[in-house]
């Protein structure tokens, strides 16, 4: 930062506004891509039910969570120990 306060203000404006624009531009890109992906590969059923809830007994595949975490940790460990 420069010493004089106006210079600091200008810098703050340039970097601040720049970050805001870059961030929201990236968000435009990501949002557009996300919408396309979701619409193409994970379309919802046509029925306009808001957030259809599965009955509790619709059983989750056992071990899914455990398997995922286990795999993750193993991979992480292996990387670390190398």
């Amino acid at each position, binding site marked *: 930062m420069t010493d004089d306060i106006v210079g600091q203000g200008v810098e703050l404006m340039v970097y601040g506004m720049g970050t805001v624009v870059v961030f929201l531009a990236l*968000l435009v890109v990501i949002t557009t891509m996300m919408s396309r992906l979701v619409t193409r590969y994970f379309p919802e059923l046509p029925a306009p039910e808001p*957030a259809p809830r599965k009955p509790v007994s619709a059983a989750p595949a056992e071990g899914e969570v455990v398997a995922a975490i286990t795999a993750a940790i193993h991979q992480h460990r292996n990387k670390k120990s190398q």
Partner: protein
Amino acid sequence: MDNLLVLWNSSGLAQIQVGQVVMMLIGLGLLFLAIRKNFEPLLLVPIGFGGILANIPGAGLAYSAVENALHAADPAMLAEFARALGVTVYDSAKDIQVAYDNAGAGAHLAAQQLALDAGYGNGMLYSFYSVAIASGIAPLVIFMGVGAMTDFGPLLANPKTLFLGAAAQFGIFATVLGAVTLTSLGVMDFSVADAAAIGIIGGADGPTAIYVSSVLAPDLLGAIAVAAYSYMALVPLIQPPIMRALTTEEERKIEMVQLRPVSQREKIVFPLALLILVALLLPDAAPLLGMFCFGNLMKECGVVDRLSDTVQNALINITTIFLGLSVGSKLVADKFLDMNTLGILGLGIVAFGIGTASGVLIAKLMNRLSATPINPLIGSAGVSAVPMAARVSNKLGLEANPHNFLLMHAMGPNVAGVIGSAVAAGVMISLVGG
């Protein structure tokens, strides 16, 4: 007779100062505007009432135990404070106050112990402020509630409107520049951190403004919050002239194509995508935008409706009450009645104006460049001030063309403005507060 003297000396009439009278009148004025004129009453009723409470002479509700002890100005007590803070020469309690403000955590603790031992306590509003704002909790909880009330559907249907939310934040940074320029000209006396906090008024978002000023400029928090909420209430008056001046009749008549339907899954993924982007690019915005995305995810995911309902009702209401009273505690006369407050009020309205103009101008530009027509009136909604600014866009659109319903189109830039100012807040804290 001694008792009568005690009672009289402890009465407000015996201790009242002009500044306190003025501030009580300002508090009553805020209540009037909130109740009669419907100026953001949910915040301005607690803020106005808190402002009156803070200025009750002799009650010390807005002061810490140490400040209350210093105000009592007992010479022996002052000497003890001076010793605890390592001050050798002092003229008045004010010098010791300054030393206390600049001291480290150790000296603060010692001084607090002295004040407690002498029977002084933290004022009620000071306690509220410590818990609600100094900790950063209340604005974050409110932001979670706002997230749980926000529908990103219109934004997802037309993501380009995010650019309008970005453009309108120019008001923030132009105001920062204005504040430091006024300082360098000797008109005002703001630090860069102060300027950043003042600029955020242009974000037109109450909790963001309070959060940023609690971090960067706690002393200005009262004026900044009052300005932010007052101008948000004034959006229907501030924006239309600017919007009319910058657009032609033809542009205002532009009808926009209907928004596509957005699936629930997109709405669930969006807050997570936003969160990841924040995590990768701007961690300093993570508290604000993290809580915002969390609230929105709870709303959209559909499996925790009871949590989402509580967040939108009991929790946000309770937090609003204590947030408002806490902001009121910053309306004590000796902190508020200052030329800087006038500067903040002036700069704040400039920020709103520039933000509105930037939004409209960029919308005009996008209209030229884009294949589908964009009505420039929705650009002004990018300042946020949800949902008031979007309603203003809609109203002006209807004036020009009775079949032109812009409300849903304006909701996109409107919520984009919330994200934009939270990002701006993160940059400010990162660059200035670090």
